[in-house]
């Protein structure tokens, strides 16, 4: 019941408004969608999509019995306008700029809940989010111009920054040990404060800044997001200069790659960025409806996704956020279709990794 609602009703609402009104065809289960397509060796396989709370919750026998007796129908809470995604051991966090919350799809616990709706420290407009190894969540709250930190149970810990520090906050990235927090000030068109501000993760103290507005190596024009890659390098999406800039961990510029255009390896509307365990770099482009994967030196390896008004697996109109989890699974957000597509490394079994084990765990072992 729940899955039927998630996979049919919500996409229909979105589709009817955005293009020719067609009922999506029933998904064929037989043929897996792999990337890249044959004859090249497959690297990733489309696994599943998160549309709503129904995708993580189970209809237990108790609720099914209640529904049968009372006629109550199942309800699912979808995504308003998702922006970014972060994942920690099977727990998927999605920031939502319309519902002004971070929505948590906790697969190991089969629970859905929300962060940022407490009265004392509400999230007002969460954009970029990240998690550290301990499972603390860091949310860039654009309206309060601060980064808000929550422990793994969802308890508010502290806020960093504030209106004095940022013109327009867009994203946050934390080192795995939580010691350093990189916060992106996208600045805005009429600001000269386009930079990455670095904070101490424990105390919240401001340490130093990286970059200024400009077009030279190390400068930014509308920077969007940071990812930490090989050897602690920082990969910064420099949106208005249509490139990714590479810095060492202390902010010294090393190189950049990409330029404006529609060809492979170029950028038109680059958004969020992520890295995997090998240091490969994943860059979302809203114009292309895909993410491109580069090696640590910025050489293109492949791309995943294409523009399509249907919004099926691997089809996008307005992608924004991306995350790669501990097992190499990719989580990819689309704002138009209000979904998170998940891709699994081809060599990883469906029931392996944090997410796979959580989904395939027998009921007795569920947390």
């Amino acid at each position, binding site marked *: 019941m729940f899955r039927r609602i998630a996979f049919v009703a919500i996409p229909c*609402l979105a589709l009817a408004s955005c*293009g020719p009104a067609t009922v999506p065809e029933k998904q064929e289960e037989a043929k897996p969608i792999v990337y890249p397509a044959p004859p*090249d060796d497959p690297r990733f396989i489309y696994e599943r999509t998160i549309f709503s709370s129904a995708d993580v919750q189970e209809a237990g026998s108790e609720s099914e019995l209640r529904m049968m007796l009372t006629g109550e129908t199942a309800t699912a809470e979808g995504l308003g306008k998702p922006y970014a995604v972060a994942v920690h051991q099977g727990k998927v966090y999605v920031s939502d700029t319309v519902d002004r919350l971070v929505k948590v799809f906790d697969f190991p616990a089969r629970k859905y809940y929300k962060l940022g709706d407490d009265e004392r420290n509400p999230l007002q407009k969460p954009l970029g989010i990240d998690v550290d190894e301990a499972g603390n969540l860091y949310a860039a709250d654009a309206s309060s111009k601060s980064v808000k930190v929550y422990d793994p149970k969802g308890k508010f810990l502290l806020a960093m920054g504030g209106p004095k520090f940022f013109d327009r906050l*867009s994203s946050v990235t934390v080192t795995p040990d939580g010691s350093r927090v990189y916060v992106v000030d996208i600045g805005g068109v009429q600001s000269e404060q386009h930079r990455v501000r670095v904070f101490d993760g424990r105390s919240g103290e401001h340490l130093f800044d990286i970059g200024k507005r400009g077009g030279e190596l190390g400068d930014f024009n509308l920077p*969007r997001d940071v990812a930490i890659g090989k050897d602690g390098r920082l990969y910064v999406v420099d949106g*208005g200069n249509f490139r990714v800039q590479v810095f060492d961990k202390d902010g010294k510029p090393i190189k950049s790659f990409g330029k404006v255009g529609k060809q492979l390896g170029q950028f038109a509307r680059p958004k969020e960025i992520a890295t995997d365990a090998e240091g490969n770099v994943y860059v979302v482009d809203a114009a292309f*409806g895909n993410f491109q994967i580069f090696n640590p030196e910025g050489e293109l390896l492949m*791309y995943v996704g294409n523009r399509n*008004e249907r919004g099926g697996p691997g089809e996008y109109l307005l992608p924004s956020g991306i995350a790669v989890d501990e097992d190499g699974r990719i989580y990819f957000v689309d*704002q138009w279709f209000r979904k998170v597509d998940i891709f699994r490394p081809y060599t990883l079994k469906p029931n392996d990794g944090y997410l796979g084990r959580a989904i395939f765990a027998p009921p007795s072992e569920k947390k």
Partner: protein
Amino acid sequence: MPEAVKRKISAFTLIALAVVLGGVLLFALPEASYPGVRNTKHNLMLRNAPPGTEDEAICVFCHTPEDASAGAEPAWNRSNGSGPYATYDDIGRLGVGGSRAVGSSSVACMSCHDSTQALGVMAFGYDHPVGVPYRGEFPGHQPFLGSGISRIPNDLGAPRTTTGHFHPAMGGTVENRRVFWVPTSPGSGASRRRTDLPLYARESGAGVVPYIECTSCHDPHSENETFLRTTQIGGLCLTCHAN
């Protein structure tokens, strides 16, 4: 012909000419001037860019240039990875010149209006009615006229009453493609003026249907603060809405 009569004719001719020319100019020129985006928030150029570089680069933030180069060869996808990537329709003419645009010009707007560098915008029924079919009558829509019901699917897939609520749209053909607009004043005939509000054609089961997109009401190149196509109070809304 007496001199006085000649002078009268001459004066009359001049006045008539002035009226005609004035009228032509009034209708020929857009209501808003088009000085470019340089002085607007849609100028994403560096403020300290050297003079002269703006003209080349100011457009690329919305209109991605076609690069003739082959692009990178993806090491993991040598067999079928080829460019250019299909992008959204950033000029409002789907498929013109065989381009591979997918998605309306509204998607181009929302690619920046995502709450980061610019205010966030929601489509559908949330805060902006973009990506919805025009509710008024329009050329090619005659089978449904008189019924009082538009059978063009709306965002909930149900018919909706339109008669009397929306002004009729006009239509024409450019390069074998249907174009639609809503005239800003009645009696403008079948020719479109720059002040008229553009609608954007999409293929659907009902044929080619005009849609409302962001750029129906907004001109992203305009110098007016909200980028509206007209700042006349009520003028913009009442172009489409009859009441």
